[in-house]
């Protein structure tokens, strides 16, 4: 067997494996959802006040969490990308932790920190009268907690592959650090910034465990789409499937709109 035919066999095997994996894990579950969808009653299932409330809340909270992730995550990523050392390693572990922890554990941790009797929450409550659990702000906090790591790590990767010589050149020409960052660094890392925002948003949209644990489950205030799916699944499975389709469609539309940035299409 010649070398080139062996290479093409390997390429073929790889393609088959890729197709099998994406069918088993990604296409079939989606097909299952479409197969059981109550198509005839879809409109009616979705035109209820509960669905509208959950959809509005989910959009508001996921965009708020993505914006917050960007505002808080950009400086963090910039600092992490600037070097190495034990402090940075420690911070990176802390940042990565919410990606690894089961979200329910994250929710409990948030309660112990920001709950009414929590480490910080106790002070917030007594000094400012602010209580986060069972509020929409609590939903945003829980979503940001799980989304922020995705933003930070994505942008840090972009910053690390950014050629600092461009920034150095701008600096030698007299630009202030802020101006260098704004006019040179930021445009050059824009793709990873964009990608970071998309993954952070997507993670925030799908957030369930930390939300139901920390923010609770109340229609109109903290019941986001994933929570609404969970509640409906037990009582009205058709409504749950309809809601799931909304989530799928919402994510698909956004990912499609951003495909140029996100998928390296030729």
């Amino acid at each position, binding site marked *: 067997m010649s070398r080139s035919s062996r290479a093409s066999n390997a390429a073929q095997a790889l393609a088959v494996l890729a197709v099998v994996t994406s069918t088993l894990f990604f296409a079939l579950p989606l097909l299952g959802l479409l197969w*059981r969808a109550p198509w005839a009653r879809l409109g009616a299932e979705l035109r209820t006040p509960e669905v509208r409330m959950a959809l509005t809340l989910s959009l508001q909270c996921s965009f708020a969490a993505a914006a917050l992730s960007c505002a808080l995550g950009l400086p963090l990523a910039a600092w992490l990308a600037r070097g190495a050392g034990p402090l940075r390693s420690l911070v990176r572990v802390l940042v990565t932790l919410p990606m690894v922890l089961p979200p329910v554990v994250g929710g409990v941790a948030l309660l112990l920190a920001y709950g*009414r009797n929590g480490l910080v929450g106790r002070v917030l409550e007594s000094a400012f009268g602010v209580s986060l659990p069972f509020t929409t702000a609590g939903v945003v906090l829980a979503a940001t907690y799980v989304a922020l790591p995705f933003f930070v790590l994505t942008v840090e990767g972009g910053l690390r592959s950014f050629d600092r010589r461009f920034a150095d050149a701008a600096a030698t020409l007299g630009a202030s650090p802020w101006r260098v960052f704004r006019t040179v660094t930021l445009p050059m890392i824009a793709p990873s910034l964009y990608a970071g925002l998309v993954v952070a948003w997507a993670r925030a949209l799908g957030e369930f465990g930390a939300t139901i644990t920390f923010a609770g*489950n*109340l*229609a109109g205030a903290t019941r986001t789409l994933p929570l609404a799916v*969970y509640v409906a699944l*037990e*009582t009205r*499975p058709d409504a749950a499937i309809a809601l799931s389709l909304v989530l799928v469609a919402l994510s698909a539309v956004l990912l499609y709109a951003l495909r140029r940035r996100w998928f390296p299409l030729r």
Partner: protein
Amino acid sequence: MHDLFTSLAAALVLAGCGAPPARTVTVFAAASLTAPFEALAAAFEAVRPGVDVRLSFAGTPQLVLQLREGAAADVFASADEIHMARVVESGRTAAPPRVFATNRLAIAVALGNPRGVQGLADLARADLVVALCGPEVPAGRYARAALERAGVAARSVSDEPSVSALISKVRLGEVDAGIVYVTDVATARASVSAVEIQSDANVVARYPIAPLRAGQGGSPIPAEPGAAEPGGRGSDEQGVDHGADGDTEAFVAFVLSAEGQAILRSFEFGAP
């Protein structure tokens, strides 16, 4: 290439072969039954050697959902008769359900009742953070019925998915008061206190149990006419086919027996 498919197929077949040993009884029980059913299973295994009782606890609606989607279970113990009726309708029960225990509601508050909750009427207080189970959960439905009977307008800050989720929020101090079962606060006595609900407003929760037949997922199985009495041993294809040797019926009978009832009573469940 064929080798690849063969090994993939083999892997898939193997993955499906985590088969339990021959004599197991899989019991789906409501979350509020956790403590007594662990004790019941241990006692049953002691009197019937060679049988392994597998327990799966979740909120009753969650269990009904799993059964509807064809989960393999031999016994279903529900926290209310409404959810059991749905399983009966789907044709999965192998014998008519029987009520084996009752429960009542209580108000769970922080240990020592620091906020001075006296009864249901206090749940309308503006200075209290009150939560209930969601209306889809039996405990949540009972709680709302009790509040309605007492004429109390309480606002739930969060519709918790199960009694255990609600209790843990009371324990963490995020919720000042939550309506749960008497048996839940009895089990969690070390970390929460109970406030009694006056009997004219209280609700009696009835727990039915039934043996199941094999499910086929998705489409409901047509009910068999003239479903036999619990005594009628289901060794035929349509009957109870997991627990050979009548282990499934034996477990149900054990729960209803004097010994089983004594165990339930020790966890403060009421007589059927």
